[in-house]
């Protein structure tokens, strides 16, 4: 009896699965590009909903018990686990979707993002990771407030941290919106509202501990969902499939030389072919509108920004030992690189598979998913890929919301306005801040101001101009004092303000004086190339002409951070 019931269940399940596949195949068999974008996709929707339920269950079972858990996961995460959490926290919609989008549209220029977002980890490791852990503070404003003995700087950097998390989050919500739109077939604005509500819900109930545990699961989902279609594409189109990040090299060369004809076809039945298109791979090609200076400026800005991002730095507080802080960066970077090595594969295949004019103009931000669709990858696997994109955005958003909320609740409310606040009060404020921030980000994301990766790049430039110089000099030069920090921060903020004002004015069709000059040299994606050195210079000059920092600060830095022996 039991056996018969079990067999019946299996049969029902198989029938449902075949119906699922059939319904998806129908969607994918349509004959124009619009179908790549529109319609409710049942299989991907089920995969995504299951995945989100998993996140919520993990969040609930690892709930934050107090502020220590909420902000720093109780300092109980291993270096390997922390590396995974760093990678997952880092690999956002910008990494999953945005990089391939830029490479698809601007060729070699997109590699500035790949190199900038990974090379920054070298700086982060050698200049900051272990030093910050040895300094022993919870958050970035904690470090700056104590190192520069200034409540004002603590409050200002807390606000900057919130702004950075905010603009970074806007890009992520944009990515969530695009993927929810693709999966659910609902308008973009609704997709943003639904997606942000879900991520807000589980961030609120779990905090950093739940988030950190979730981020380890999310890493596995992100990387598996990203690699499976990569293996399938290289195998299907007869490239070296055993190692897709190497196998796609020939695809790049094929685009440069052209593929006159072949036996392969895309999902619309168009031949796998493309005229010679050297602009895809040649450096700073004139056709992309990006030059050598812009490549270098973007790359440098992303690197210094990486080393100054509060939600990344905050991860060093969640490991038990300083050595773990260092090793978690190595693991984190390796895990990140697995995705970054593979990302150009999607833009390369996407370039050839979307060559035929009938495919139409595709949204660049979703090119990863479209490439898999055009390559006739099984719809459920494409759905898993889209769920991976959602997972990437979720993991980053949750980390950002925690960082933003802790900036408000811990650094502003508790440390500046109400030092008597109880743990319960702080948790309450953190939750209110998370809600306010999520709602604000959702509203801004609905405007769709730029490509995901570009929106995120703004956050990097802001961090590179403001927080990076404070950390760099704060750690490596005991002569840097409060006045110098204020001067450096003012310079960094002024340059940021100019860049962002011109960007927003441009988006609303207002032309400000010297807009060509500012748009080229101080553009929002890369202004840290000049902003960071200027802020460092201002900090040094003012520190040299004003009184040195107090003895206890110098002593703490020399002894606790740099291992000097205590005198007397």
């Amino acid at each position, binding site marked *: 009896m039991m056996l018969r019931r079990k067999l019946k269940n299996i049969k029902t399940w198989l029938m449902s699965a075949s119906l699922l596949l059939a319904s998806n195949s129908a969607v994918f068999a349509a004959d124009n590009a619009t179908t790549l974008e529109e319609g409710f996709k049942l299989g991907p929707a089920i995969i995504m909903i299951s995945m989100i339920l998993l996140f919520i269950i993990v969040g609930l079972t690892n709930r934050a018990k107090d502020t220590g858990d909420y902000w720093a996961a109780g300092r109980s995460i291993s270096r390997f686990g922390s590396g995974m959490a760093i990678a997952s926290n880092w690999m956002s919609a910008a990494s999953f979707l945005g990089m391939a989008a830029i490479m698809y549209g601007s060729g*070699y220029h997109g*590699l500035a993002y*790949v*190199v900038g977002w*990974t*090379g920054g*980890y*070298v*700086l982060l*490791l*050698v200049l900051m990771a272990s030093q910050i852990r040895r300094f022993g503070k919870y958050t970035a404003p904690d470090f700056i407030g104590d190192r520069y003995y200034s409540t004002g700087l603590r409050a200002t950097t807390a606000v900057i941290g919130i702004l950075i998390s905010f603009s970074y989050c806007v890009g992520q919500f944009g990515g969530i919106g695009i993927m929810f739109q693709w999966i659910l077939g609902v308008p973009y604005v609704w997709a943003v509202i639904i997606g942000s509500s879900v991520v807000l819900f589980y961030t609120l109930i779990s905090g950093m501990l739940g988030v950190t545990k979730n981020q380890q699961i999310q890493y596995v989902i992100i990387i598996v969902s990203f690699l499976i279609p990569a293996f399938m594409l290289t195998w299907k189109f007869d490239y*070296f499939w055993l190692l897709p990040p*190497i196998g796609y*090299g*020939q695809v*790049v*060369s094929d685009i440069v030389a052209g593929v*006159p*004809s072949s036996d392969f076809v895309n999902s619309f039945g*168009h031949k796998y072919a493309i*005229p*010679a*298109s050297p*602009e895809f*791979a*040649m*450096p*700073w090609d*004139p*056709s992309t*509108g990006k030059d*050598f200076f812009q490549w270098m400026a973007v*790359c440098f800005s992303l690197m210094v920004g990486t080393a100054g991002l509060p939600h990344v730095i905050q991860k060093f507080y969640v490991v*038990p*030992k*300083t*050595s773990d802080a*260092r*090793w978690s*960066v*190595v693991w984190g*970077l390796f895990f990140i*690189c697995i995705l*970054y*090595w593979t990302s150009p594969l999607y833009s390369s295949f996407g370039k050839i598979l*979307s*060559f035929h004019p*009938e495919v139409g103009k595709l949204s660049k931000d979703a090119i990863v998913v479209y490439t898999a669709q055009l390559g006739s990858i099984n719809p459920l696997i494409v759905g898993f890929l889209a769920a991976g994109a959602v997972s990437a955005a979720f993991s980053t958003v949750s980390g950002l919301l925690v960082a933003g909320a802790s900036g408000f609740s811990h650094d502003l409310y508790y440390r500046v306005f109400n030092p008597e606040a109880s743990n319960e009060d702080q948790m309450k404020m953190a939750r209110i801040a998370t809600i306010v921030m999520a709602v604000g980000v959702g509203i801004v994301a609905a405007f769709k101001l730029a490509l995901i990766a570009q929106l995120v790049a703004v956050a990097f430039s802001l961090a590179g101009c403001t927080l990076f110089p404070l950390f760099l000099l704060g750690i490596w*030069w*005991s*002569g840097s004092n409060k006045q110098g920090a204020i001067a450096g921060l003012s310079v960094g903020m002024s340059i940021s303000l100019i860049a962002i004002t011109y960007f927003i004015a441009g988006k609303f069709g207002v032309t400000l004086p010297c807009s060509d000059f500012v748009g080229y040299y101080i553009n929002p994606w890369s202004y840290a190339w000049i902003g960071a050195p200027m802020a460092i210079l201002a900090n040094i000059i003012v520190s040299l002409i004003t009184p*040195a920092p107090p003895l206890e600060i*110098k*002593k703490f*830095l*020399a002894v606790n951070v*740099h*291992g*000097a*022996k205590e005198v007397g």
Partner: protein
Amino acid sequence: MSESQIYDFNFFKPKSAFAKSNTLLTSAIIIIWALAVFGFHFLLKAIEKPVPEKQLVTFEQVWPSVMDKTATREELKGLAGTYLNLMGRHIPLRLDEDSDVDDNFKLCFTSTIYDLLPANERLSFLALTQKELSERKSMTAGIAARIGLEEDNILTQVLPYALVAYDGKPVDVKVLEAVPDIMRKYLVHNRSVLTDTQFLGFPFHYFYTAIFLLVLFVVLCLVYCRIMDKVAVKHGIEAEEVKS
């Protein structure tokens, strides 16, 4: 020396043995990192040369006679092929960020086809350009043959999409004058031995940036951590943490 001076710390003048080892290692890693990323790209920039594609060479040869209205049918064929090749790359054509010139470019292409057709085929061609895309698709095989495209050439698939509604009047001179700039923008590429050498299937510079640099970053971080762990133990830094 005052107590304050004893505790002075400067990256370039470390005092303790641990700080000296730490800053030396940090400097070495940063120098390798900077040379590998920025040094390579300066080199790439220094040795590159702007190399025109063969389509641009053809274009430069025939364009003066096109403007003089003395172009032969063969020259017009070459020009049409160049137009079509560029449109076949599926990239938006822009002279600057705000000026989309796709439609003007299609107009130039359509008028070139018109000019190279025999007089008795021109009227039917004008009618064809007015038709919907779906109708046009099945009627462009003859035109493909006129411009020398073989049936299996992938650009024949682009042809129906590259035509716009045309009335047979000469194209505005301003539109024509912009064509050489577009051609030079899209058909000249920065190339050198680093871009033209292949490695594991990649153009070498692409492999270096997309694959090798990331490997190098991981290796640099790994080396730093291994050495720092030893340095920390040697100088008794982080010893309490290790015990715990």
